């Protein structure tokens, strides 16, 4: 039993995920100055490390379950999700200008992180019997409304980044569910036309972020500062990097949020192009496996789950890393498995766990 169980594991995926987590712990350590006696010490690394181990233990335990049973809870999970997001609006406390956190004992949770994975599960459950039947706007509208409610709740927090992840998940999953491509094209076209109206609904700081993305020098000491400093950090790492703990941009605090949203810049600065490219290749393996698992999934629900998870991850990687290198606007979404943050880490490990579970169940009979 044990042996068969092991043989059904996707070791390539596990290797990539564990390697990224290890790189994350080292980089967070450097970014939080664990080498300097006076500074925060091992606090951040310890927390992240403990949660990684706890999560992985939980994953091993959860491997005995079958993801397929999740399909039955699709609608219930959806309701829980909405309730959670409403709770944040009512009881959450704000930080950095956004109301995203909820305090439970010593742990600060960010429900919008978990809501992404719940969204994927409930959307997969919803789409399961609609594959190949998404040909008209009438077919699509209920699904769009289904995603639209949590999307708006997250946007309202305000958390533009996470709400955009919802759109990425939605698009990825309906694409995999065989949505009519002409219809998809029409929706894109409408989206482009509607963007000036959407612009109107953005908060000033969100507009500023987009303006600064277009030209960081609009506000070099304000919002543009982060992008400029991040680009300097990455660029100055050159081919081989400045060495761990040697990144002046990060160590001397020129780089903001260096253990959370801008952690890729620390990798770029201290490990150079070699380190940055290595990390990106690990993500490529991870994402590639995600699609492979979708292809090999034993049922449509599993396929949709895998596509949803992969869409979420690829969007995070593109927007976060793109942001640190100045090719994406500043939206506070973390780099999966790299950025410091318990909620994000847990969500992503759970997502990987789901992928593994789908992979395990790909064939009833292995021999």
């Amino acid at each position, binding site marked *: 039993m044990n042996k068969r169980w092991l043989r059904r594991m996707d070791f390539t995926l596990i290797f990539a995920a564990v390697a990224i987590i290890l790189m994350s712990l080292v980089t967070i350590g450097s970014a939080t100055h664990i080498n300097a006696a006076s500074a925060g010490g091992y606090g951040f690394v310890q927390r992240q490390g403990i949660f990684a181990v706890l999560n992985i233990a939980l994953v091993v335990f959860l491997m005995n379950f079958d993801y397929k049973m999740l399909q039955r809870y699709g609608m219930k999970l959806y309701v829980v999700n909405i309730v959670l997001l409403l709770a944040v609006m009512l009881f959450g406390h704000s930080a950095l200008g956004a109301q995203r956190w909820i305090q439970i004992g010593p742990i600060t949770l960010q429900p919008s992180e978990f809501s992404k994975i719940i969204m994927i599960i409930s959307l997969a459950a919803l789409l399961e019997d609609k594959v190949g039947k998404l040909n008209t706007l009438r077919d699509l509208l209920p699904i769009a409304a289904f995603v639209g409610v949590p999307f708006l709740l997250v946007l309202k927090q305000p958390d533009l980044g996470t709400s955009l992840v919802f759109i990425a998940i939605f698009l990825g999953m309906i694409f995999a569910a065989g949505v009519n491509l002409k219809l998809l094209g029409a929706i894109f076209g409408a989206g482009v036309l509607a963007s000036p109206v959407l612009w109107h609904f953005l908060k000033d700081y969100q507009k500023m972020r987009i303006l600064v993305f277009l030209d960081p020098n609009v506000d070099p*000491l304000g919002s543009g500062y982060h992008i400029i400093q991040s680009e*300097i950090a*990455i660029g100055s790492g050159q*081919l081989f990097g400045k060495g761990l703990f040697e990144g002046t941009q990060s160590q*001397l605090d*020129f780089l903001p949020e260096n253990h959370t949203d801008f952690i890729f810049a620390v990798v770029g600065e201290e490990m150079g*192009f070699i380190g940055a490219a290595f990390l*990106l290749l690990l993500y490529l393996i991870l994402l590639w496996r995600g699609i492979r698992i979708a292809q090999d999934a034993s049922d449509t629900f599993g396929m949709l789950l895998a596509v949803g998870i992969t869409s979420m991850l690829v969007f995070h990687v593109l927007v976060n890393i793109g942001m640190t290198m100045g090719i994406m606007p500043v939206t506070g979404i973390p780099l999966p498995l790299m950025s410091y943050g318990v909620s994000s880490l847990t969500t992503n490990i759970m997502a990987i766990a789901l992928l593994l579970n789908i992979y395990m169940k790909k064939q009833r009979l292995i021999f």
Partner: protein
Amino acid sequence: MLHEFELRLKFLSALIVLVIALLIARAGYLQVYQGDEYARRSDGNRTRLVPTVASRGTFFDCNGQSIVENRPSFVVSLLPLTAPIKPEVITRLSELLHVPREEIDAKVKAHTGYEPIRIKGDVGQDILTVIEEQSELYPGVIIEVQAVRDYLYKAQGAHILGYVSEISEAELDARREEGYRTGDIIGQFGLERIYDKELRGTNGGELVEVDVTGKPVQILGQKAPVSGHDLHLTIDWRLQAATERAVDDQLSLIGAQAAAAVVMNPQTGEVLAIVSRPAFDPNLFVHGISEANWKMINENPNDPLDNKAITGEYPPGSTFKIVTGTAALSEEVVTPNEMILDTGVYWLGEKGNAGGEVLGWLDFTSALAHSDNYYFYEMGYRLGVDRLERYARMFGLGEKTGINLPYESEGLVPSREYKEKYLDDEWYDSETLDAAIGQGFNLVTPLQAAMVMGEIAANGQRFQPYLVHKIVDADGKVLKEYKPTLLSTLDVPDDVIRLVQQGLRDVTKEGTAAGVFGAGFPVDIAGKTGTAENSQGADHGWFVAYGPFANPNIVVAVIVENGGFGSQSAVPIGKRILEAAFGLDGSIPYAEAPGNKRR
């Protein structure tokens, strides 16, 4: 359907590869292609070159007395690093320092780079205490200790020493390749300007690694500053002081505003004192001159920043008779003993002495002693303007003496060429008569007047006037020593010079200066008074003199603007200068610097 599904997932795979490839390409662009540029910017972020300003060289007089020093001054500055200085901090600082907000804002706006923005210098202990104890109210405000110039004797010798100030944008553009940087102190006037290179030394600095708040983390490198060199002047500070007093007392006595005086050693060219009135206090410029003070200086019609001793051009008046007389004897248009009858009004031009004085029969020496215009009209008539011009030039008139001070004027020598060139008119004989008595197209600086007198004193030798005796480095090593430079010798017979000397001695014995000097003056003095006609107002009074007559080591030139007759305005000043120079006022007489052999 299955095929379609496979295709769509393949498309998603391709999209993922594309995304990762795009990100790797971007990383490669930033890190490999533009890596050097970003590495440079990263270093610019974390490192600051904190300059250590070299101590500026100081000034000593010919007896080793210290005249100019440096003193520490506390400067309140702003150091904006990653974030701009908050408006409320600027408001608070403006109130604390009593500096207008707009002035601070303007400085902040004009600022680039990482050097501190200096807001106010010479702040007192009370303000320092406030800023230090309430530092949390003043983020970005720092206190620097700066060495500033201290002109120990305030306005005394101001036109010699000059002043310093922070380099201006225009100067910076012009002199950047000479090593001048923003915020550098540069000599603006006088010796401070001419010898700026020697005085300024070489700034050192520390390359400091700082964190994002500008807090130094470690020192990456150090370069010690090299102090500037000291200047030992030819100026005799005691004589300078006496000259200033003599000028000031006389000006207040007669109610005149502007004057200049030069004291030199005719045997060497060493300048012992230079006075120009009105003067200014160079200390006012040390921290950037205030608007009120600048207005006071700039709007004074007599221009305190003008060194009238070398920049002012005046008609030489009767002091020019030294040149005319020398020319007449040398050219043998007159013999020393030829008697000429002053009949009052010269036939050409119908002019005579001031006040219509008629002096009767005169030989050369008595004509010079009494400064008889009729006699010198005749000399001018006999010589003609061309010969007059040649001798004037031989004395060094019409050209800069080359003294090591800025803004020296050339003066003007009467000539046909000048009149044709600038007035497009031919020369008239009556103008030769004007020129012969130092009027008309005839201008000299007080320094040139002193030089002419000095050449007679030194038996025709013309020495380059100079102010710096030696340049000494901070370790006391003499880097450069200036020796007397003989520029030229008058091409006239020795007995001509002797006759001119005799005539000039008689000026103080029986001539125009005898009334002031009296019979009892213990040192034999040769002199010449002058009254320069001034179309703008009252005449300027001149006096040039040297002594002791037998072996002169002092030559003096004094002009009092709008002072009227030289004998009444300038001679009393000259007399007091000579008294000080020879120790007749109870002081120590001027002693030539060791090594300068008396001729």
